[in-house]
């Protein structure tokens, strides 16, 4: 597989606190890689290191195969764009002026493309209004537009939907999907809002206590989810007997409810239970969520 970003044994300490502890990551080209972890897990520290804002204490990372300590890593960084924590925009400038400023920083020969960028992030009608007067969602979109100056093919977004209203969340989600699908931009996105991330990501990395504890593609994740059926019956003893005969894994929850961990033939089960004088009152199919999978991996009891 072709990777945009890999790392080996990345470690970063802040005083006595170890923010990253030998972290290794693999971000496939063309993916939307969701970096999942609770607050303080090390997501932002990892992003700061990758963006060159901080230096690792040990370990190394590669962007498009270039090692972070290589002299020419700067040239590779031109292929990157990032929004780290808060959008990096001049609050006293309009959206267009902000983009012009970033074009100058990049040394772009002309301002061609700015109108297109503003349209892409839906700020083409913002006019001369200063970014300081923008809503959080508008500022976030402007931050992404600034990160997109210079046509990067690797975009890093740190908690891009934090604090946004539902409409803002939908806008950012659609924008990220558009960038990935239409512009083929690889996106590394960190979030602790798992439900939202599950609507976007093609790959996941679960980070906990500075370590990457699991990397999994969305397809693998789907297969890994345990599917179950909650059955409400009149007699769980009869149900247990029947399920034992069928060789199916289950768990009795109370006198009338049981959780069955398999795909079952409902007619077959209903007939078998009917012979034992047991009625099925209801059947409810459950699917494990990304959230429960994450909690299984990192241990829910520690989660605050």
């Amino acid at each position, binding site marked *: 597989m072709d990777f945009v970003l890999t790392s080996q044994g990345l470690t970063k300490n802040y005083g006595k606190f170890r923010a990253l502890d030998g972290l290794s990551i693999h971000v496939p080209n063309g993916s939307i890689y969701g970096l999942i972890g609770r607050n303080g897990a090390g997501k932002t520290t990892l992003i*700061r290191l990758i*963006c*060159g*804002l*901080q*230096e690792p204490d040990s370990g190394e990372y590669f962007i498009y195969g270039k090692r972070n300590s290589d002299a020419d*890593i*700067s*040239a*590779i*960084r*031109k292929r*990157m*764009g*990032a929004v*780290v*924590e*808060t*959008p*990096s*925009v*001049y*609050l*006293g400038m309009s959206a267009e002026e902000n983009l012009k*400023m*970033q074009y*100058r*920083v*990049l*040394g772009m020969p002309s301002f061609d493309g700015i109108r297109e960028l503003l349209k892409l992030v839906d700020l083409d009608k913002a006019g001369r209004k200063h970014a300081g007067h923008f809503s959080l969602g508008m500022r976030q979109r402007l931050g992404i537009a*600034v*990160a997109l100056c*210079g046509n990067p093919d690797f975009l890093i977004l740190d908690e891009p939907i934090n604090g946004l209203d539902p409409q803002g969340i939908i806008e950012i989600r659609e924008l990220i999907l558009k960038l990935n699908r239409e512009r083929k931009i690889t996106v590394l996105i960190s979030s602790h809002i798992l439900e939202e991330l599950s609507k976007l990501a093609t790959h996941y990395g679960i980070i906990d206590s500075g370590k990457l504890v699991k990397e999994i593609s969305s397809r693998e994740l789907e297969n890994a989810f345990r599917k179950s059926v909650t059955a409400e019956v009149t007699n769980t003893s009869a149900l247990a007997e029947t399920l034992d005969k069928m060789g199916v894994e289950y768990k009795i929850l109370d006198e009338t409810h049981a959780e069955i961990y398999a795909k079952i033939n409902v007619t077959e089960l209903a007939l078998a239970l009917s012979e034992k004088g047991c009625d099925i009152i209801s059947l409810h199919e459950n699917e494990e969520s990304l959230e429960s999978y994450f909690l299984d991996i990192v241990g829910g009891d520690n989660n605050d």
Partner: protein
Amino acid sequence: MIKLLRADLSRLFRSKTFWLCAAAMFVLSVVMAFDYANYVREAIENGYYQAGFGEERAFILAPVLGGFAALFSGTFLGTDYSCGTIRNKIIIGHSRRNIYLANLFTCFAGGAATIVLWFIGIIFGMIYSGILDMGFWDILVKFLTALGFTAVFCAVYVFIGMLISNRTVTVALSLVIWIGLTIAGYCILGEFENINPDDFVPGENDSFMIADSAKGKFILCGILSKVLPTCQMLFMQSENSIEDVLNNIGLSVGFYLPDIVVSALVTAAITALGVCIFRKKDIR
């Protein structure tokens, strides 16, 4: 580096703080120009005018320059941190050394523009008074000296601004340093103007020399007068250089080092240290 400089300059020259400082310097310089012209006219009318009279009034605004530079440099540098935009420069691969130097050159360019406005006022005052005792070279030396101490001030402010990530603290600390250096400058100058009689011993031909016990203090004051931008500013108002002052009190200096050379060395030293520290700084 050129790209950064272009971006930084365009941001500085659209900064309200910078234009307010530059405009204030220009207005003050015009006011002082009229004051100088009236002062000289009065001296001519009363017959006590002589060459070089009132020049200290013409350059009286020199100490203010450092304060204006602290204001616009601190605001300019602090904004990059408060808005987080310094991250945009690093993320796309600009080296920290280039980011630092571009900021220094930009602040210096702002300072130089302010000096130009100030000198326009001075020259206007001289022309208006009808007295142009100072030759082109004298004015040029003063102008270069002003550029020199402004570079030192900018180096100090950029050092503070690049290492402190808070705009308010950057501006406040820059102003405090300017005030502190100005007070230090006046104190050092005061040491030469009000020499304690106990520090003198009789010399040859009824002259007086500095006592050996006080030489160390005056040599230190002499070095600081050369190195501190505020001392250079204060000496700018005087006809004498610090070398002349030291010679007058019997501390003969065998050579003359132009202020602008000292300023360039001090600026380079502060900048080298600042770049080294900024390279290791964690940006948040």
